[in-house]
């Protein structure tokens, strides 16, 4: 019996150490998820679900890589990815806001389109190493700290930028007039309209912003994480973002924790395998947790407390009010 306990303790310790050592990798794996989720939180807060996340992210990845490779500038690559992601989101915005078609179907179509176009666009870049790489940011003192420096202060600019965006987007959403307007459109578009808010414009803006963030998140994969273009390299990250947006209960600050948690799952699946933890069962976790959150937040009181956008997935037409 004591043998068994000692064995278990040792195993637990190994697992714990593995998890802690995986933190930097989890943050890097979580960064594209964080960009995407911050964008999707804004889109869904305006009432528009965008299941095209995977398509917008992969378009960001391919166009970001293409631009960075041809211009030699990583910054131009990221900028291009944001533009392309935004343009792609515009398709969904037009279909779901102006034409008022089913948001679910239109988003799915966007994902198919993105996967197809990116594979064709990226064909010429397959196998090329990226010349214009992002270097880790050297932060005085902090980066040189033993252990802590290595764990938390050896990232590139895109990681820090995503972290800075979290409080900024949180503040905008909850504490500014425009943020309240955005949320009101996702909550009760008819009331917002009656108060003189241009519902259509706000929704377009939120969806396009979501697409730009998705594009940046995708470009992080091809410009910093890989850094290379690999066909289908988002590998379902867009679907994790859709799950994560719900898991974070449409809140930018919870998106940060969730992104690193889900990023950690992606990293740990390989590292915990030798310790007898099935990578496949681990990979189910994000989706199961999301279903659990959907379930727990299903009753009306909980929905209000959490602040789930009440008008999510419903098109708005003034004459049908």
């Amino acid at each position, binding site marked *: 019996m004591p043998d068994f306990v000692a064995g278990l303790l040792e195993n637990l310790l190994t697992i714990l150490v593995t998890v802690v050592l995986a933190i930097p990798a989890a943050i890097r794996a979580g960064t594209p998820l964080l960009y995407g989720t911050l964008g999707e939180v804004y889109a869904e807060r305006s009432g528009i679900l965008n299941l095209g996340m995977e398509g917008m992210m992969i378009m960001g990845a391919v166009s970001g890589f293409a631009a960075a490779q041809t211009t030699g500038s990583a910054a131009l690559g990221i900028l291009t990815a944001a533009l392309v992601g935004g343009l792609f989101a515009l398709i969904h915005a037009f279909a779901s806001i102006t034409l008022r*078609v089913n948001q679910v179907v239109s988003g799915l179509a966007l994902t198919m*389109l993105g996967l*197809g176009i990116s594979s064709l666009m990226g064909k010429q870049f397959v196998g090329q190493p990226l010349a214009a790489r992002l270097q880790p940011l050297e932060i005085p003192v902090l980066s040189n700290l033993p252990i802590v420096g290595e764990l938390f202060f050896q990232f590139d600019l895109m990681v820090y930028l995503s972290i800075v965006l979290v409080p900024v987007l949180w503040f905008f959403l909850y504490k500014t007039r425009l943020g309240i307007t955005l949320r009101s459109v996702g909550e009760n578009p008819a009331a917002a309209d009656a108060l003189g808010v241009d519902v259509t414009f706000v929704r377009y803006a939120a969806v396009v912003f979501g697409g730009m963030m998705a594009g940046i998140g995708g470009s992080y994969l091809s410009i910093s994480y890989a850094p290379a273009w690999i066909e289908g390299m988002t590998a379902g990250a867009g679907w994790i973002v*859709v799950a994560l947006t719900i898991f974070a209960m449409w809140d930018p600050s919870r998106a940060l924790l969730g992104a690193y948690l889900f990023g950690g799952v992606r990293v740990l699946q390989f590292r915990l395998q030798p310790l007898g933890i099935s990578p496949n*069962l681990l990979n189910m976790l994000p989706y199961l947790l999301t*279903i659990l959150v959907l379930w727990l937040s299903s009753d009306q009181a909980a929905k209000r407390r959490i602040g789930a956008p009440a008008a999510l997935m419903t098109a708005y037409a003034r004459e049908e009010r």
Partner: protein
Amino acid sequence: MNLPSLRIEKRLSSPRWLPAASLTVGLLLALVTVAVIFATLGVDPLTAFQRIFRGGFGSFYGLQETVTKSIPLMLAGVGLTLAFRGRMYNIGAEGQFMIGAIFATGIVRLFPTWPGFLLLPAMFVGGFLGGALWASIPALLKTRFRVDETLTSLMLVYVAYEAVKFLVYGPWRGSDTRGFPITDEFPAAAHIPILPGTRVHYVTLLLAIAAAILVYLLLTRTKLGYEIRVTGENPEAARYAGMDYRKVALLVMLISGGLAGLAGMGEVAGIHFRLRPPEALSPGYGFTAIIVAWLARLNPLAAMLTAFLLGGLLVGGDAIQIALNLPAATVQIFNGVILLFVIASELFNQYRLRLER
């Protein structure tokens, strides 16, 4: 400032030719759009279209491959016409397909010595039950707790993918597979009969055709079908008429999930004769089935035709991959554009666009 703006208004009446016309125009515009995308990306659209068409429909080999790939699309697509008619947005057919494949494989493992006339029917039933079981999760969450079924059914796709991987990499990995993540080959009794000289597992095909006819009859000739249609078109009216929304929702989800599960069973027992990782079992049949259903305007009989067309597109996609050295995902451009134009064209049956100043 008075910019002209696009307005959409409801039609008071619509002529009978309109649905067919708007679908035709939508499809033509979709093809033009795909051609423009191809040309922009440096692929000659005429050559590509020709190769796709010839690949999918231009030879006996292509045609039998098209029929083979249309079987899972037809089963899952027919199920989705029913679900969407009842306003249950089941977008998780891909996951239900996977669980159907797992259940069918499980039955082979449980009764490996049964003769074919017992084993195959048991596998068909198992496949259906597996898919229905998987669909029952979003269905019950919807009917009991009002949890949106679109998102839960989608999330369960990825859980199902991991479940298949878990089994083929772990406990179900075969003893003589040279390290490949696959199960052992099924005994001959568990192979669905195949038309000689083809890959068409015709028993599943007949089941798919029967399913299309039965779902059509259910929708048009029965009281239950009437309730499904009313609930789908006008939930408020259905409630006033005393119809049981939960019953309808649960039923359409179980049937659509079950048919997707049958599709998964057909693939493992008619094509692969073993369970393989998800990406080897399905090039996204469950998602393509959404296009099958929508393109058929949610008519189960028409879904037979649209499944055949989209099956041909898949085969044609393989053809351009080889002949023009294009990536396999190229056909996804067709899928995405067609889906967008089909749902947009549907809109013009009820609404008209007007430019206002």
